[in-house]
């Protein structure tokens, strides 16, 4: 069997010449098409440079612009010429000047010999694959595209819009089902001859002249009409980025290219000297025999994802999403407890013991950030300086959560803590906010001062807390928020704390064995009543009765469902 090559060249002629020599050395006749935009001097130099090779010819030159018909016309002419001039060729491989053979041509030939009568061409219906960029998939075939996308973008866009508006719908020639796929194929003489000599070719050509990017659809569609056996994949390794532009291979890709087992790869950076020196390379006995592009796919797939989605919760100089529209502001879920440490003096320690989470004190306290270990600098080299933190409170928190995303974070919050973080706590889908409203009254009560002395302070704390609650009750607040008044909480502290701990553990944790020690609330209702008598109504605490805290203590006992217990 004999393999012939059609090569399309428009730049980097030195490299292209090198590639021609690879193919020629492998015993393949090469039909070269050079873009007619290339100046005569360069063309002549290129021709002269290859004049020592017998089976290298040049085909009729066309103007090849990306996305336009010229590329197909060039391919048709070159392929036809190749088949005419080299009668023994029975397989044609379409390549470009920047396609680098990774494996010796003999291995490619052996591979093809193993698959007689098979056409290798990626060809998929537009209905089934969402490959295209820019939203034009089906419409590539039903609108007209006379204007260059590269040079006359506005005209292109407007003409598309105009056609969409008036409802243009071109008729696809009878017998054809539009297919698309990689431009680079390898077809048998039989199939290619059938396509080039199709009695309706003039009609088809006329149709495809106004299709967008016909080089990705002309052969891909017609092959479905003529081929007997199609392997819908390209033998050329070629990856595309999110803009639909081919990824480029560099020296540091040598290893993954070698392991891919692919026969040909594009595009290669023209100065990637290591690649040009080391390929084509014979596969080692235990190396891959058939192309398997898993690793390559993964690497380039990741690049697309990084460019389109990025790393959630990371804010840096090349990623700055609009948080108002974003779905989740921080890098990982975290819990905020408002009022718990007022009710339970050792709540932080208790919570740290119950879970694996890192439990901070008041990260947004007025004097400084109370990191879990109370150090002055925390992970990521975050400073505990309050002024620095409050300069960009949201940045402070997103930084902390990004750096510590390997561990669940919790922190305490209170009415006097930095208010500029309220918005984020209410809107971040990762935030889990637990509030005991009115808990600020406990430290005031415990301070031993009278209601008259603490009246102003109580009013201030209640105002601040109410602002926080307002932020949490905003209609767009997407955090998981659970607010209970002090009275409601005391009604059944165990259940709330159980859910709180379960949520951090991420599953149903074991039943809480001990509850945190509660402050002594005896006399709190009387103190609150006295505040009311002073004209300061502590409405956020709920209705606290004298027995409440005693009941709370009872309710804190684990419920027993075991008959005969005690």
């Amino acid at each position, binding site marked *: 069997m004999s393999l012939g090559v059609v090569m399309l060249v428009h730049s980097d002629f030195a490299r292209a010449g090198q590639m021609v020599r690879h193919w020629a050395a492998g015993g393949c006749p090469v039909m070269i098409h050079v873009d007619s935009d290339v100046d005569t001097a360069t063309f002549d130099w290129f021709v002269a440079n290859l004049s020592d090779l017998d089976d290298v010819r040049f085909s009729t030159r066309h103007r090849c612009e990306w996305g336009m018909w010229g590329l197909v016309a060039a391919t048709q002419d070159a392929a036809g010429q190749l088949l005419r001039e080299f009668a023994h060729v029975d397989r044609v491989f379409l390549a470009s000047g920047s396609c680098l053979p990774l494996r010796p041509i003999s291995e490619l030939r052996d591979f093809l010999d193993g698959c007689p009568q098979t056409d290798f061409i990626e060809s998929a219906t537009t209905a089934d694959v969402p490959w295209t960029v820019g939203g034009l998939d089906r419409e590539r075939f039903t609108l007209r595209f006379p204007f260059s996308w590269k040079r006359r973008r506005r005209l292109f866009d407007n003409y598309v819009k105009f056609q969409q508006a008036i409802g243009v719908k071109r008729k696809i020639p009878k017998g054809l089902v539009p297919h698309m796929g990689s431009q680079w194929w390898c077809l048998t003489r039989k199939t290619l001859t059938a396509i080039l000599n199709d009695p309706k070719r003039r009609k088809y050509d006329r149709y495809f002249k106004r299709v967008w990017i016909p080089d990705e659809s002309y052969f891909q569609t017609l092959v479905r009409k003529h081929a007997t056996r199609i392997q819908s994949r390209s033998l050329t390794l070629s990856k595309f*980025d*999110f*803009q639909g*532009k081919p*990824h*480029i291979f*560099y*020296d*540091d890709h040598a290893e993954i290219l070698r392991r891919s087992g692919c026969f040909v790869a594009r595009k290669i*950076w023209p*100065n990637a000297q290591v690649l040009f020196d080391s390929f084509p390379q014979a596969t080692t006995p235990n190396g891959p025999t058939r192309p398997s592009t898993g690793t390559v796919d993964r*690497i*380039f797939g*990741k*690049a*697309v994802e*990084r*460019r*389109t*989605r*990025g*790393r*959630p919760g*990371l*804010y*840096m*100089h*090349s*990623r*700055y*999403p*609009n948080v108002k529209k*974003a779905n989740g502001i921080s890098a990982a879920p975290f819990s905020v407890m408002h009022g718990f440490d007022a009710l339970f003096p050792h709540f932080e320690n208790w919570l740290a013991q119950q879970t694996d989470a890192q439990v901070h004190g008041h990260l947004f306290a007025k004097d400084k950030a109370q990191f879990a270990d109370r*150090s002055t*600098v*925390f*992970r*990521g*080299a*975050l*400073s505990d*300086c309050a*002024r*620095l933190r409050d*300069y*960009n409170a949201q*940045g*402070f928190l997103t*930084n*902390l959560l*990004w*750096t510590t995303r390997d561990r669940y974070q919790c922190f305490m919050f209170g009415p006097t803590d930095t208010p500029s973080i309220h918005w984020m706590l209410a809107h971040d889908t990762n935030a889990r906010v637990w509030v005991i409203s009115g808990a600020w009254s406990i430290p005031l009560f415990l301070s031993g001062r009278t209601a008259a002395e603490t009246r102003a302070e109580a009013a201030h704390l209640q105002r601040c807390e109410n602002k926080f609650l307002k932020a949490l009750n905003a209609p767009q607040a997407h955090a998981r928020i659970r607010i209970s008044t002090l009275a409601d909480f005391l009604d059944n502290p165990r259940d709330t704390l159980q859910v709180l701990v379960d949520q951090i553990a991420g599953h149903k944790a074991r039943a809480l064995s001990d509850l945190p020690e509660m402050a002594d609330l005896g006399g709190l209702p009387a103190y609150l009543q006295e505040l009311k008598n002073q004209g300061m109504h502590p409405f956020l605490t709920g209705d606290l009765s004298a027995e409440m805290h005693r009941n709370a203590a009872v309710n804190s006992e684990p419920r027993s469902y075991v008959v005969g217990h005690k």
Partner: protein
Amino acid sequence: MRARRKGRELTAAQDRTSQITDTDILLFCTFRNEDIRLPYFLEYYRKLGVNHFLLVDNGSDDGGDSYVAEQPDVSLWKTNAPYGKSRFGMDWLTYLQGKYAHGQWALTVDVDEFFVYPFCDTRPLRALADWLEASEVRSFGTMMLDMYPKGQVSDAIYQRGTDPFKLANWFDPGNYTLKLNNFYHNLWIQGGPRARVFFAEKPRQAPALNKIPFVKWDRNFTYVSSTHMLLPRGLNLVYGQNGGEKTSGVLLHAKFLNTFGPRVSQEAARAQHYGDGREYKTYASEQDSSEIWCQWSEQYLNWRQLEAIGLMSKGNWA
């Protein structure tokens, strides 16, 4: 206009610009008394793939000017005009960029800034420039990363011609905050050791760390404030706005070495830097406590480490 007028303040000391070809990558830099840093600076950027250096010497008296003038790939201009009145040297560079860099990739950095980008250990600047060009991207964003030694800054004694990051090889990994400048569309980044140690109580004044040093230049472009932002404003959109990451790099900043102390006293007195040298005055008052290293400092390995931490991104370049 302004740049052209300021251009008259320059006199060519060594003009090798006739060597510049269309595809060369050019480096622009202003310096003053940096003889000790220049050899490694030139070596670093040569290795990265800079083809020609266009330097402005602002009144050095340490011999650095004659050293660079002898280099085969350097063109040197001199001026004794005040740095502060030329927008911190940008006027002079804008003049030179307009004249020599039109249509070419230009890197604008200080002598203590070292450009790091994804794959910079295996792919030269030309590869980056080609890729940006194919992606129709005209400007490339970085963040300045302040590097510092472990221990007293004054104990990190820098030797001429050596790699400064052998000494100053620590950095703050995660304390940078961003704001959007709605007028110029650029991000304004502050943080790092300078905010943590020197500006914690006046964070508004902490120095900006966002820089856009690598640009396919056009004679209509101009840097607005140092290399922090550019005009036209579209060039400042070096960040993804919908969650995606654009490809970006870092400028390793070799400021905190033993050269820092004497420099601070000089510059604070000279008051030619931004805000009458306000920044330098702060350093001068804080100098005694100049251990910058902390428990959570990270030791520098390579660009992959920075990309994993989230201080730069490969973006779409794989």
